[in-house]
C-alpha cells in the first residue's frame, strides 16, 4: 500500500510530461526472451483520444510491447497503467485485436459466434449469450460491413474479412482503449478503407486506438500520434512533430526513406529495408 503511494509520487515528479490524462502509460518497461532484451527501458505516455501508430523494423518489439501491455508476456521490470490503473483493474476498458494468423480459421464456428465471444467476459461464468449479445454482435458486424456474412463458417473468409471479424469482436466490447496488432496486414484495399474509417470513428467517439503498423507511407494520413520503436523507444509524440526523417533513420538504422523526402535512397530492389517504404497507394 505504502509502496504504491511512494511509486506514484516518484513517477509524478520524474515524468517529463505529466501523464494525468494518458490513456496508456508505460514506465521503465523492459522485456526479455531468454538472455536477449526485446524491449529496453521503454517510457511511453499515449494521450487519451488519439489514433496512435507503433512503427519500427522487424524484431523491434512492437508485438511484444502490445502483449506486455495486456499481461500476455511477463516483463523484467516496468509499470503499465491504463487511465492510471493497472491492466487488471481496467480489463473491460481494453479491447485487443490480435494478428489474424494467431488463430486457426478452420475452427468449427461462425462469424457471428466469433464476434459474440467479445461479450463473454461481460456475461460472466455459466451464463450463455442470449438475444442481447447476438444483437450486439450483429450491430458490430454491420459497422464493419459484414452483417450478411454472419452465419458464414469462418474458414470461408478472405483475409480482409477475417480481419473485420476480429475488429467486430473488439467493437462489441465497447472499450475505451483499442489495441491492434497489424490490422492492415495482407488485407484488400476495401477492407483497409473500412478499417481506417472505423478507427477514425472510434477516435471521434473519444476512444484511444493503438495500432502496430507496417506501412510508413500511410502513417501521416492515418494517424495523429506515433511511437517509433527499435527495442528502445526512439521517439513518440504527434506525427507532425516526431515522424521525421531523422527519427526514422534512428529507428530503422539509417537505411530508410519515406514519401515527402528528397533524400536519395538505394534502389528498391537492392535495399533490404525497402519493404518499410510502404506500398504505393492507388
Amino acid at each position: 500500500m505504502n509502496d504504491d503511494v511512494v511509486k506514484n509520487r516518484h513517477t509524478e515528479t520524474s515524468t517529463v510530461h505529466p501523464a494525468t490524462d494518458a490513456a496508456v502509460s508505460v514506465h521503465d518497461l523492459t522485456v526479455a526472451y531468454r538472455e536477449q532484451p526485446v524491449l529496453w527501458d521503454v517510457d511511453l505516455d499515449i494521450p487519451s483520444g488519439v489514433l496512435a501508430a507503433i512503427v519500427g523494423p522487424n524484431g523491434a518489439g512492437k508485438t511484444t510491447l502490445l502483449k506486455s501491455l495486456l499481461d500476455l508476456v511477463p516483463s523484467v521490470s516496468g509499470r503499465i497503467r491504463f487511465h492510471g490503473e493497472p491492466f487488471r483493474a481496467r480489463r473491460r476498458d481494453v479491447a485487443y485485436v490480435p494478428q489474424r494468423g494467431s488463430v486457426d480459421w478452420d475452427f468449427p464456428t461462425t462469424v457471428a459466434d466469433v464476434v459474440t465471444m467479445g461479450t463473454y467476459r461481460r456475461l460472466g461464468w455459466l451464463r450463455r449469450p442470449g438475444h442481447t449479445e447476438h444483437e450486439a454482435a450483429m450491430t458490430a458486424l454491420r459497422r464493419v460491413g459484414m452483417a450478411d456474412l454472419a452465419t458464414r463458417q469462418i474458414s470461408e473468409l478472405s483475409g480482409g474479412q477475417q480481419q473485420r471479424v476480429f475488429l467486430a469482436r473488439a467493437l462489441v466490447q465497447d472499450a475505451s482503449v483499442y489495441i491492434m496488432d497489424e490490422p492492415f496486414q495482407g488485407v484488400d484495399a476495401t477492407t483497409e478503407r473500412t478499417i481506417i474509417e472505423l478507427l477514425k470513428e472510434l477516435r471521434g467517439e473519444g476512444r484511444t486506438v493503438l495500432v502496430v503498423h507496417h506501412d510508413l507511407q500511410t502513417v501521416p494520413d492515418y494517424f495523429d500520434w506515433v511511437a517509433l520503436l527499435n527495442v528502445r523507444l526512439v521517439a513518440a509524440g504527434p506525427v507532425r512533430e516526431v515522424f521525421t526523417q531523422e527519427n526514422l533513420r534512428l529507428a530503422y538504422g539509417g537505411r530508410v526513406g519515406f514519401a515527402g523526402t528528397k533524400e536519395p535512397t538505394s534502389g528498391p530492389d537492392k535495399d533490404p529495408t525497402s519493404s518499410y517504404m510502404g506500398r504505393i497507394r492507388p
Partner: protein
Amino acid sequence: MSEALQLLWTDYTLRNVAAGTAVLGAVSGALGCFAVLRRRSLLGDAVSHAALPGIVLAWLLTGSKAAPVLVAGAGITGWLGAAAVSALARRERIREDTALALVLSVFFGAGLMLLTVVQGRPDASQAGLDTFLFGQAAALVERDVLTMGAVGGVAVLVLALFWKEFKLLSFDADAAAVAGYPVKLLDHLLTLLLVVAVVVGLQAVGVVLMSSLLIAPAAAARQWTNRLGRMVVLAAVIGAMSGALGAAVSGLAPGIPTGPAVVLAATAAFVVSLLFSPSRGLVSRRLRAAARDRRLRTEGDAS
C-alpha cells in the same frame, strides 16, 4: 444383424458390454473434440499410456484389484503424464511432440517393467493386471457400467457448464487471457477431463488403444459439420455407436476381442466420413473440382 440387435437386449453379459462400450465411446467422443481442435490429439495417447504404471502401482500399494482402485491409480499417473508434457513443453527448447514422445515411452516403459516384475512373483494374485493393456470388455459387470456412466456424465456436465470458456480457450487463448479468464486453470481442467475420458475407457479398451477413441469420433464428426456444438454431439453419437457395434461384433464372433473391434468401428466411421462427407469429403471435393474444370473448359471453348 437383427439377430445381433436381439442379442444386445437379451444377453445379460453382452448387454453390459455394449452399454459400457457405448458409454465410453460417447464420453471419449465428446471430450476428444477439444483435444483434436486444440491440436493435442497425441496428448490423449500419452495420458493413456502413462496410466499403465498407475494401475500396477495401485495394486502394489493396496493389494486390491477392484476396478475403482486401479482406475484411480491410472488417473493419477495419467494426470502426471499430462503435467510432465506441459512442464517439458514450456521450456522453449523442447517441442511439444518431443515432450509427448518422451512422456509416452518413459511412462509406458515403466508400466511394462512394473507389470513384468509383479508377474514374476510366485503367487498368482496379480493375474489380470495385464488385461489393462488391451482391455477386457467382456469382464464388465453392471456396476462397472454404472460407474463409467456416472464418472463420464460428470465430465460431460463440466464440459457443458464451461462450454463458452472452453470454446474461447480453444479458438483464441490470448483473447481468453486478455478477457481475464484464468487460462491456465481452464487448460488444466480441460486436460483433467481428457484424463477422465481415458480412465473411463481403460477397463474395456486398454491403455494402448484408448486414444483412438478420443480422436476417431471427433475427426469423423468434424467432417460433417462446421459448428462446435453439433460436432461434439455427433462425435458422442459416433463414439457410442462404434462402442455398441464393436461389442455386438465381438459378441457374435467370440474370437474377436471387443476393444479392438470398437476401435476399428470408430476408425471405419472416420474413413467413411473422410471420403464421403458432402462438404469436406475427398470424393465430393474431387467431384466438385472435376465439375468446375469441365465448366471452365466449355466456357473457354465457347469464347
